[in-house]
């Protein structure tokens, strides 16, 4: 066990596309939630030394300083961490203040993930994000005084977005000189504001052109495309996310969080009342050898690292190319992987691995 995810399900406003587990910020509820979260961690954490911690949401930065202090100090005091810990917290642009940055620093947080999504006025308003390009530039420069390891989330394939708008977004991003970026094509989920309004996807061809534009531009500028939606400067890959994609085990704490420990994957309840009453886990799924083998493929093939041969053999007991038909994959000394040209159509290949 090397990783822990901690979920904070509160936001000060709800974005039109978001289907994560979240609630409007409410001071009282947050206090109770933090107590419950602390209980869950105490009850389940077995004392392993952790390499990565990731506080996500929702919007963890929407908590006030006192609440953040309580949570972060508990984490510092209770979780054992390794020397080269990667410790991330997700931040909303407008929540960034010197006080919060200082607090994060104090508790050894060393990576920020900031949801920017776009610099474009129309796109931001479509996504119901309440800030401007100028706000972003100001807040990022503040954050950079405290942190070098920063990620920015960028959204593309938003209705009415053009290649020109996207190009502009990428250029703005490059100017910020940030070492990591996650670029997600907009997904329209059923129970989101966009889903309810019957929003349509942009065309498949335009979506692909955007993906290629992002890949080409970022690679030209020294970013490594290491996962379908993630790019980094050398040494700045998200080690926490790589833990998921390498099919490693991790704790998931908090409302709706999921984890993978011992021989099962679990998902916590999304019902806040149940959670506050200490009924944390909603579902458990035993990971059989077959499921595990297929998870190695489904997750690993998203990254340039692919499926590690030795790890697969150690866990499954057979070589990958004995267990699976690997004719769609490429191979190097350590692993089988999916050529980058196939990443954006990976599902049509992954179906052969389930």
């Amino acid at each position: 066990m090397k990783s822990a995810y901690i979920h904070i399900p509160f936001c000060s406003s709800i974005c039109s596309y978001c289907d994560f587990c979240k609630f409007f910020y409410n001071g009282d509820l947050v206090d109770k939630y933090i107590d419950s979260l602390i209980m869950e961690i105490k009850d389940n954490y077995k004392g392993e030394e952790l390499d990565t911690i990731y506080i996500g949401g929702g919007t963890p930065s929407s908590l006030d300083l006192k609440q953040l202090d309580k949570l972060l100090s508990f984490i510092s005091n209770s979780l054992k961490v390794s020397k080269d810990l990667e410790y991330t917290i997700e931040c909303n642009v407008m929540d960034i203040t010197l006080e919060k940055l200082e607090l994060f620093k104090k508790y050894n947080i060393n990576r920020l993930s900031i949801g920017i999504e776009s610099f474009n006025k129309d796109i931001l308003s479509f996504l119901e994000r309440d800030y401007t390009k100028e706000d972003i530039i100001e807040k990022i420069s503040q954050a950079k005084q405290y942190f070098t390891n920063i990620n920015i989330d960028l959204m593309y394939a938003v209705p009415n977005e053009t290649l020109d708008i996207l190009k502009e977004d990428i250029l703005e991003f490059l100017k910020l000189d940030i070492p990591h970026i996650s670029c997600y094509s907009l997904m329209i989920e059923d129970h989101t504001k966009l889903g309810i309004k019957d929003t349509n996807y942009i065309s498949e061809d335009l979506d692909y052109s955007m993906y290629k534009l992002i890949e080409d531009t970022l690679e030209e500028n020294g970013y490594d495309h290491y996962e379908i939606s993630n790019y980094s400067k050398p040494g700045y890959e998200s080690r926490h996310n790589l833990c998921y994609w390498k099919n490693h085990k991790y704790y998931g704490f908090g409302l709706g969080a999921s984890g993978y420990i011992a021989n099962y994957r679990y998902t916590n309840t999304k019902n806040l009342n149940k959670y506050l009453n200490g009924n944390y886990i909603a579902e458990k799924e035993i990971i059989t050898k077959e499921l595990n083998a297929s998870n190695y493929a489904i997750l690993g093939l998203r990254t340039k690292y692919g499926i590690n041969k030795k790890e697969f053999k150690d866990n499954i007991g057979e070589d990958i190319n004995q267990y699976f038909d690997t004719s769609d994959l490429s191979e190097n000394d350590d692993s089988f992987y999916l050529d980058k040209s196939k990443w954006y159509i990976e599902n049509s290949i992954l179906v052969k691995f389930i």
Partner: protein
Amino acid sequence: MQENIRNFCIIAHIDHGKSTLADRLLEETGALDKRELKEQTLDSMDIERERGITIKLNAVELNYKKNNKDYLLHLIDTPGHVDFSYEVSRSLAACEGALLVVDAAQGIEAQTLANLYLAIEHDLTIIPVINKIDLPNARPEEVKQELIDAIGFSPDEFIYTSAKTGEGIPELLEAIVDRIPAPTGKDNNKLQALIFDSVFDSYRGVIVACCVKEGTLKVGDKIEFMETKATYDVTELYVTTPKEVKKDYLEAGDVGYIVASIKDINDVKVGDTVTLAKDKADKPLPGYIPMKSMVFCGIYPIEANKFEDLREALEKLKLNDASLTFEPETSSALGFGFRCGFLGLLHMEIIEERISREFNIEIIATSPNVSYEVVLTTGEKIIISSPAELPAKEKITSILEPYIKTNIISPAEYIGPLMELCQDKRGTFINMEYIDKTRVNIHYELPLSEIVYDFFDKLKSYTKGYASFDYEFIGYRESNLVKMDILLNGEQVDALSTIVHKDFAYQRGKKVVESLRKLIPRQLFEVPVQAAINGKIIARETIKALRKDVLAKCYGGDITRKRKLLEKQKEGKKRMKQVGRVEVPQEAFLAVLKMED
């Protein structure tokens, strides 16, 4: 005894309440009590119940007492659909009377009329029954007048019923006894029993449903089927009430079932005559016609290793359904499968559905076609049941296609659109009769292939569903026909080839490739879709290469969701057929049919 027997059937349109009425008769005569009476007992197959139609026949014996006299009523069930009109005619031949059941709200429909004419041809006594009088929109008096005008009933012949509430059922039973004549055969004549159905029982073999017209049949007799010349020893005789009741003998007027360890369904032909091997009747009963498939399609297992399972399924289905024909066929696109022949489109759909439902085999059915007579330059005449069998153009002198004559019953206001539709479908107008003041029966001669194509759907949309339709086969006629091939990724897909009229080829080719472009999902590479006649491309579309098929965001917790998504995608892939390098969904093979004009 025979004077107390009444053999009758029910003629009704789908949904006009035939099965419910039959149930009510069973209940009223005490054949089954309410608890035993599963709704619609006579329709025993699930598909029949779901579709509300009767496919396989059944005969039930009912005991009825009137004025202290015991009567034996035989209710012979008939299929209601035009595909099965020969089977209908045979069950009519087993009866002396028929109940014409007409919905009090909807009036008479084409299929009912067609079957009624059949019944009148067989000299049956018809009892007109106006059913569903409990409906709020029932208009029994108007419907009665329609029937008087159209068929010539006299006003006092009508019985009004509600099969739902039971109203009128006692009166109906009385009418059956009073009006329908008893059968007139003689027990001591030579045996002539009319086969009107057969069912397969895994323990007892093929069971023959028959009506004894003349003579007596006993357990232990050696019987002969006069058409197929097959002989068997009768091991068991029974009637259904609807429970099975064993009998030692069946005599003139009886309707019952023969068990004789019959292994081969092909020995038992509906319409054939059963006689005694030792004491044969001089001639068979009139009316036997060998059944001929009118509509054909290729049926292929999606998974190639299911070919033997499919054969087994077809063999099993055939045990109960002599009109189904099949023979192995190889398609370069679809692999090994069967070319199957059906009485009509409904028959085809039912078989396809039963294969997937009862035998759990995923299949691809090619678009249906009719059979053609091809006259070769050598003067030889061949019949083909698949476009793939069509010889090269240079070898053909002419091609003949089957024609049908229609009964289209429709409100008069749709005459214009209907005539337009029939003209578009290469029809020749014959005549038109007014059934009543508002409805007409339109007769056209049309190529059957146009009916198979999309006539039903068109008819419905042209008349807002008000028209009903029936047809009879009238023979083969010469037409200017060509074979249209479809090429996917440059390879000809034999299963998508069709024979079309030359004047329609260009237009249909365009539509087929267009709908294929929409139905075939994007592949990993670009796929051209072309239509060609004699090697000349007449239409083209392009399926673009797959660009995006990915779950962009995937956190640790999303793995379950991601897996579900992939599982669904895999399921969908299973239903695709690999044609060359292209994955083609099942629906695409019917695309040739389902097109909007």
